[in-house]
């Protein structure tokens, strides 16, 4: 048995939000009783953690705490349109629209409080459940502030829309502005290849990705780790097969997925190159996380055993076969020499 190690690198890029068409998302926000907040938007959680991200954004913008934010969402009859949960668009599109709606609600509250205290609106700030006027000793809890605003007859609400101005591609040469925000990434993979069995183990991935601004760094890591492992699944084992259109991989016994034993250690490096257009500087990570992994692994396999896999997945059978061919041609060269 010969175990060979190797390393490879790959880069990648990705566009944020809907491709080559205008994208939009909207939000309603309200500073609510008790100094809490209600944020309503048309779409959210598919597992990536966007609910928490939106609550963090709302909390920061309003001056409350994330767990005091209630998100109302996901209902075409009860929430404003925010389009779909995909295209690495949620933090960018919906996050920015939440920020803008919260700023409007906050402004409503600030106007009332500035009047109440007899100070300039511009002197007000709020954070972590408190509101105050800079350069004065006016300060109270957000709970009290909302109460004061309501007693003055004003419910602090706001609404906003965020637009990404994308254009379609020219039908002849494809020119156009498909996205306004781009992200980039690079990953290094380290593998061990068993030249007898053809089995490849990915032992380490170092993944550096630009996300604009990380709202929740642990959540970003989670997206990178999950994306990397999905890519390793496609790179090494997953294969939905059909014969004359009928699947021959009908269940998880035949359709092989990565388990706890197959996954590398993933080291994430979060790069923050803020988006200059949106109010928050955020971009996204969901899809781009998995782009560089497969080529990085294939380049690492080449580094280890000198075999280039160009047809996915790189199953043990394919590796063994490619090694056999390589050895044969090496022998042929030798005997010719």
């Amino acid at each position, binding site marked *: 048995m010969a175990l060979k190690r190797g390393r490879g690198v790959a880069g990648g890029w990705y566009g944020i939000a809907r491709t080559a068409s205008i994208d939009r998302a909207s939000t309603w926000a309200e500073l609510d009783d008790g100094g809490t907040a209600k944020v309503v938007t048309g779409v959210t959680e598919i597992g990536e953690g966007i609910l928490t991200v939106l609550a963090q954004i709302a909390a920061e913008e309003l001056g409350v705490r994330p767990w005091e934010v209630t998100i109302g969402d996901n209902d075409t009859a009860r929430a404003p349109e925010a389009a779909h949960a995909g295209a690495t668009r949620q933090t960018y599109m919906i996050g920015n629209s939440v920020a803008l709606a919260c700023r409007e609600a906050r402004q409503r509250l600030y106007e009332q409080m500035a009047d109440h205290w007899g100070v300039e609106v511009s002197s007000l700030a709020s954070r*972590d459940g408190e509101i105050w006027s800079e350069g004065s000793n006016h300060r109270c809890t957000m709970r009290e502030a909302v109460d004061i605003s309501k007693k003055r007859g004003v419910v602090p609400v706001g609404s906003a829309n965020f637009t990404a101005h994308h254009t379609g591609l020219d039908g002849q040469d494809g020119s156009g502005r498909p996205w306004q925000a781009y992200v980039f990434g690079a990953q290094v993979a380290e593998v061990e290849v068993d030249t007898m069995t053809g089995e490849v183990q990915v032992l380490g991935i170092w993944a550096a990705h630009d996300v604009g601004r990380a709202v929740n760094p642990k959540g970003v890591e*989670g997206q990178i780790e999950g994306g990397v492992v999905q890519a390793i699944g496609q790179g090494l084992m997953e294969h939905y097969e059909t014969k004359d259109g009928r699947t021959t991989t009908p269940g998880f016994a035949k359709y092989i997925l990565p388990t706890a034993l197959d996954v590398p250690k993933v080291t994430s490096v979060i790069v923050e190159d803020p988006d200059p257009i949106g109010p928050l500087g955020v971009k996204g990570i969901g899809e781009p996380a998995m782009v560089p992994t497969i080529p990085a692994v294939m380049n690492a396999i080449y580094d280890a055993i000198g075999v280039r896999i160009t047809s996915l997945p790189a199953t043990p059978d394919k590796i063994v076969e490619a090694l056999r061919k390589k050895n044969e041609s090496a022998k042929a060269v030798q005997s010719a020499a």
Partner: protein
Amino acid sequence: MPDMIVEATVNGRKIKKIAQTHQRLLDFVREELELTGTKDGCGAGECGACSMFVDGRLVKSCLVPVGKAQGSEVETIEGLGRTGELSVMQKAFHKAGASQCGYCIPGMVMAATAAIRVNPAVGDEEIKERLGGNICRCTGYQKIFDAVGLARDVMNGRLPATALDEDAAEGGRYIGANVRRLDAPSKVSGALKYAGDQVMPQMLHVQVLRSPHAHARIVSIDTSEAEAMEGVEAVVTSADVPGKDGFGVFVHDQPIMARGKVRYVGEAIAAVAAEDLLTAKRALQKIRIEWEQLAGLFDPDEAMQAGAPVVHDYAPDNLVKHIPIRKGDVERGFAEADLVIEERFETQQVEHAYLEPEAGIGYVDPDGVVTIVSPSQNITHHRHMLAEILAMPINKVRFVMSPVGGGFGGKEDMIYQGMLALLAIKSRRPVKLVFTREESIATTAKRHPSRTSYRMGLTNDGRIVASEIRVIYDGGAYGMSTEGVIRKGAILAAGPYAVPNVKIDTYGVYTNNTPSGAFRSFGSLQTQFATESMLDMAAENLGLDPFEIRRINAMQAGDLTHTKQELKSVSLLQCLDGAEKASGWETGAPTVRGATREDLDGEGCRKPCRLGARFHAEIPAPKLSEVA
């Protein structure tokens, strides 16, 4: 079906309930006891989502006939936090950020709890072995390992209990803070109700008749016998669609149920709503269909040839879409090149394998609003399409997105919600459909398989001067997201590199294969795999370090993309630096130098798996009260 009376202790409470002998323990717990924290991810012992304890042993309850639970002590995810407080393990999952969609999480928490019960000092490598029977499609497992290690350390006193608390956000700044996921408690406790966990009064159960043929004309459908069955409340086919019958993300080429002909194996033909699942299943067998076989088309290259079978009449060339991108003059570029590399690449069809199979509920509310509750990734567009299909005003159609147990693009298509609407309208009762894992795998969209021909020209100093890329994507039987997939695939194909001369053509074609649709990274994974492989081949030829060749070509602020858009800022160099530094990369050309590298096996690598070597001697431990 004979019934039996099951007496057992479940989560510390005595129960006595009627069960049906064919039920699995999983069904009994979910349906009769209404404890829906335990999930059905595969029904075949392969995923671990249904894990629970029976007499202290971790079992996959989808493999246990209900009769086996007679007189036993059963503990489910709901039993762990019986006092209303989460268990240490559940808190650790919350703190570590170990839950994403959450669908695998109850099973994971049970398996992790078992690991600690068996060995309170469980090592990091043994944790992996112990969780090896549980699939998670979202997290990549790393945060789950972190959670189990954290719970272990808190339980044996190596870490204080406060390690499980929320970290303080500095200065009340919440953007940039590792706020614990707000939805995690509902996921680690099993309290969150996914669509398949929800019930409504008077609810009917739906089953779908699916095509056994890849390409065949439907001469006739006779549902009369099925409709006459006792317990069957409604049967629908394409004849029941009142409006414009077509959906799809770009082209509306897919009917709610097959209309006139089927185009892939597994395509929906008819749907039945009945008082119970078994009756609905039996009714499917009573539907009579007369077929006329058509020649099938299974190869995307063949689809583009003249005389190939035609999948959709509107597209006699089987072409969904072609996206061309042209910049500069590739032939001139190749003429300038010192090195020209040519290669072909292939990628396969891939299943999303979200742990939550498709499920949904449809009902007509008291105001006549047709309402669909399902884990749809695109409720806005689905509402638009369904209103047209039902010929109803748009505000009389309502979509509610239930918690999504993983999507990855696979839940963007409205593949079953239309049937729920039609059945709810016809039966005037709530209806519910839950896919089996087999149904989900065989009938839902996949990642587009692709075939790429690539030609890249470079100068001796490593600059790419021309890239010519041609990709054929197999879209399968329906358009779904194909147009967008091949567009994104094209735009990003040549990579984040400044290439003066580019010629890219991507094609999406129809075949009679399982449809391809949206899948995380949407067509660009296929093309960027090719580009990044080509770059390493070039680097070997030119004696350049792989980072170096990428830096030489990296787009920079002010450069034009392949679609001639000026970029304001480009972070590729920062990312390359970040990956190079973090990995401690040893510089050198990619000349199969693995054996001589000095940067291997450093920090950031796991130990290779030598199967079975990781189990420490098992210490049979008494049940720990703190994990219960």
